[in-house]
């Protein structure tokens, strides 16, 4: 068995790579956080369509974020980041680099100001304040570690180039959970009575809807087109144009995340326009597919693997008879 070039790393067309021929153009999301209004329609529309259970009812104190992070019961997650900036600070000029040193989530604790009561004589020393909102989702990586490590073939690449769990195959081993560089996929632990408990769960990019030409539920609901669905190639162009447009308007903080086929996961099918460093949104700055070094490891293990395969054939025939 030989790995083709870029099977596990670098730019590649993932559907073709996995053997779909012909196949439709690769589909994905471009999430433009600069127009996200934090309404969470995506979270709800996703749950309604995919019958994802609730994720518990606790207030987190993280601005308006009460779902916390992507997990088995939250496939779309809207982060809220409150960023006070004093006017006249150097941040506007340096593209926000200084701000990146701040904690990723501003907990809104009392800030030190020139005036103890926060209001000056004129009331005009306003903090130049930003409230960032961003809807996160599974990245549908070009090189998806979750899929590469899945021993059962539950996780698979679709003809649209997306990565989907087959609930009927997954045995809940959890290898994928540790493999995901973004911490997206997770085994469902509850609530009681929910379907697929114990099974690995994450965004399917609404695979079923795609088969009849419908948009994923989140993208369809999004009131402001913050979540855009389409052909990845076209979305990447659109994203580049949007960044250029924002730069032109003086929004120098705008940058893309996940759109680069040369990055550690070969680019993502779901990528983002951010207004600050990825860490600020709770995203890893430089994710690398955890199976990047797998070929070397795998070649050393080939002999052992073939022996196991022979055993598996016997076992399979025995089970079916």
């Amino acid at each position: 068995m030989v790995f083709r070039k870029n099977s596990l790393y670098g730019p590649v067309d993932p559907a073709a790579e996995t053997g779909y021929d012909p196949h439709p153009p690769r589909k994905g999301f471009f999430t433009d956080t600069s127009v996200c209004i934090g309404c969470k329609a995506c979270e709800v529309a996703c749950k309604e369509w995919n019958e994802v259970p609730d994720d518990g009812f606790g207030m987190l104190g993280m601005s308006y974020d009460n779902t916390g992070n992507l997990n088995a019961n939250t496939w779309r997650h809207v982060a809220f980041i409150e960023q006070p900036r004093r006017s006249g600070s150097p941040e506007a000029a340096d593209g926000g680099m200084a701000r990146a040193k701040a904690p990723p989530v501003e907990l809104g604790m009392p800030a030190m100001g020139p005036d103890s009561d926060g209001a000056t004589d004129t009331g005009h020393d306003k903090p130049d304040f930003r409230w960032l909102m961003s809807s996160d989702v599974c990245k549908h990586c070009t090189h998806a570690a979750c899929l590469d490590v899945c021993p059962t073939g539950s996780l698979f690449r679709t003809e649209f180039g997306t990565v989907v769990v087959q609930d009927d195959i997954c045995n809940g081993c959890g290898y994928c959970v540790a493999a995901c560089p973004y911490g997206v996929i997770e085994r469902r632990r509850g609530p009681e009575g929910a379907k697929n408990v114990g099974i690995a769960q994450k965004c399917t990019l609404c695979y079923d809807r795609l088969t009849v030409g419908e948009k994923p539920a989140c993208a369809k609901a999004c009131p402001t087109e913050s979540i855009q669905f389409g052909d990845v190639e076209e979305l990447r162009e659109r994203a580049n144009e949007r960044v250029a447009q924002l730069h032109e308007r003086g929004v120098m903080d705008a940058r893309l995340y996940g759109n680069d086929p040369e990055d550690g996961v070969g680019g993502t099918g779901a990528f983002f326009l951010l207004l600050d460093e990825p860490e600020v949104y709770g995203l890893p700055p430089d994710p690398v597919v955890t199976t990047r070094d797998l070929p070397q490891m795998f070649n050393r293990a080939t002999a052992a693997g073939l022996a196991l395969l022979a055993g598996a054939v016997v076992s399979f025939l025995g089970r079916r008879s």
Partner: protein
Amino acid sequence: MAEAHPVGFQWVMEAKKRGAKIIHVDPRFTRTSAHADKFVPIRVGTDIAFLGGIVNYVLQNGLEFRDYVVAYTNAASIVSDEYVDAEELDGLFSGFDPETRTYETGSWQYERQEAEGSAREDHDVQRETASAMQHETHGISVDGEVLRDETLQHPRCVYQILKRHYARYTPEMVAETCGVDPEDFLEVCRAWTENSGRERTTALVYSVGWTQHSVGVQYIRTGAILQLLLGNMGRPGGGILALRGHASIQGSTDIPTLFNLLPGYLPMPNAEQHTSLQEWVDAVRKPGSKGFWSKAGAYGINLLKAYWGDKATPENDFCFDYLPKITGDHGTYRTVLDMIDGKVKGYFLLGQNPAVGSAHGRAQRLGMANLDWLVVRDLFEIESATFWKNAPEIETGEIVPEECRTEVFLMPAASHVEKEGTFTQTQRMLQWREKAVEAPGDCRSELWFFYHLGRMVRDRLKDSTLERDRPILDLNWDYPTHGEHAEPSAEDVLKEINGYEVATGRPLSTFMEMKDDGSTLGGCWIYTGVFKDGVNQAARRKPGSEQDWVAGEWGWAWPANRRILYNRASADPSGKPWSDRKAYVWWDPDKGENGEWTGYDVPDFEKTKPPTYRPPHGADGVAGLAGDDPFIMQGDGKGALYVPQGLIDGPLPTHYEPVESPFRNPVYGQQGNPTRKEYQREDNRLNPSPREGHSDVFPFVFTTSRLTEHHTAGGMSRYLEYLSELQPEMFVEVSPALAAERGLEHSGWATIVTARSAIEARVLVTDRLRPLRVEGRTVHQVWMPYHWGPGGLVSGDSTNDLFGISLDPNVLIQESKVGTCDVRPGRRPTGKALLELVQGYRDRSGVVEGQYAGVVTTGPGADGIHEGDPTGEGPSGMSRRNGHSGDRAEGQDEPGSDDAAPEGS
């Protein structure tokens, strides 16, 4: 807007993408502010000062759209020389009577116009009946010719009066009053004016929190003045848009479930002024006035025919006598206080949860606990159905289930997909919903419930010979039913609303077809046309992508499918568009026989009346409207910068402090709206404002609004997993400075206290709230959502429990967007200790049983309460009697009502 109307906000984001500048003025930084180019924080309750400042900026710099203003508004009209402005009378307009706290409006009238006879008594009655709302919709009455000075130089013309009235609303005054940076303020002024005029228009979008103030109507009036001055009314991209909060709240105002209105904004008759059909009709059509209200007789008679069918004849005045008469304030707050006083037997709640959603939740619940019976129709077991087992008053011992006699029926309701019918949304558009499935179990529509309730009541009275039962027995109530549950046909009801020819059943196409001889009937004249040509126009669904930008073939908008009201104003007086860019409706001299109005929308004007038309001397009604009078529902055809009649609290908006404020009014000796409606009772005590002293006991300002993730009182959101998990707990937002001052911990608990109640909430310390500098000192504002109650998947205390009841005098809507409070760290006490905590605050703040602060604080009528004398003496007693004399004016026999409210103190 992003918070409460996210899908509507898509159009703002679209405009932003095209380069529009977005300015957001709000007490707190919201999801809307996050996308604004400019966020301007403002002190709650100072909007008239802010907008008045912009009016002043426009007038001082001559930035009004002069051609529009001269031709289409009453700027040139000359006002009586007896008029004295509030600027000269320390916050009161001429004609004020401190005894009744109402105005005699003779001095407000236009020059040479006869003043109405007993205007003061009028206002007394008007406040009691929210009839200003009726007046406003019916337009001002203008009898005969008004003196005008189109150079706008006459010292008593409206333009000059306006200019003098707002001259003191300088950027410095705005900064001082609103806590707004003068530079920020000027940026708003520049943006608004630069984006208005011939080539450009600006839209003013407000959410109905604006109405929830003791000066709510005047807030909106100030916006109207500004939009008229800048020529933004009746034009595309302009206007004033109320973003209303419920699917059919516009519909429930058009076809009102409101005590003072009948369908189509016809007034509910009152026993004093509307004793006959003719009086009732004349009160609306105002003989001699211009405009389409002149046909009020036909509108009213068609309604009576729709109600009583064949029994309504010209000989019996179309059963006008069957209409019950109002005699005063029968609004929801007054009714709840009457429940506490034991005067109401039965109460229906129809998809409404006042135990959480109405101001002064405790009063709401105590009222419900003192009924004979209560019928709650809802999708879920809401708090208003369960007050007898989980109201906060159970814990304090104020409601004891075993002693509470109220019989409760919780009747499950059908959802929006389980019945068919129309909503009328915020843009006055009716949209028909198809029924998807049958409702489960005992769930039924309101249509079913009320049709069958009516049938059963009629059945019980069928042998009655009592005169009082005739209106029920003679009622036109034969609606065909279908299906297993005998559901009435919503489409048949809509046909009746639309109206038809009695003899043939042919649906009317326009309200102009309504006759006043009984040959036609129609339940709501402004909806006539929704069944034009026998087709349910509200069910039209031509895709937006296949239509122009007006999209006139989606649904149906009243009146006559017009999408922009008063759109004649989108053309200049000669009938040409003001500019190509803003062309909308114009006169085409080559169309039809002698020319016609045409354009993208249905012209809001007589189709063939040319711009050059001038009414013959003495003409009134529709014929009295000139070809360049675009405001066709107004008595003079003009947009009203100044309102000579119809408003209780003055012809011009002027700044008053909220009823509860930590500040003295910086502009006038008159502190608050002098004409506001107050119920001065022990169970409705208000926090003191500065002149009364001890206002420092409640040093902070609080306000409340919605979260995107919830809906109003939570009845449609706190019971859903997918919404509850997104905002699971009641919280209060405070600034870091206030948190430091009061020792509040982020994610910890705080208790918020007013003279009514104390509630607890989780603390969100955030820079989105910041202290403001007002009148030389710092004011902290806190914000809370109001969605929680003890029921549902997620529960919490109710913000509305903090509010008392004081009302705008024009429309009797409560001030529930601003109050004063204290904020303390930690959870609130429970049981009796909660009552003790609140009582302690009352004692410290000088709230003394039986004594009330005066409302009038300037002029000869000002009572004797001074700073440092919070208990007051005689004058407060007088004021208290005044408060109740208003109640007595309603003429009911109410022994003991003066000392109502045995509990709570």
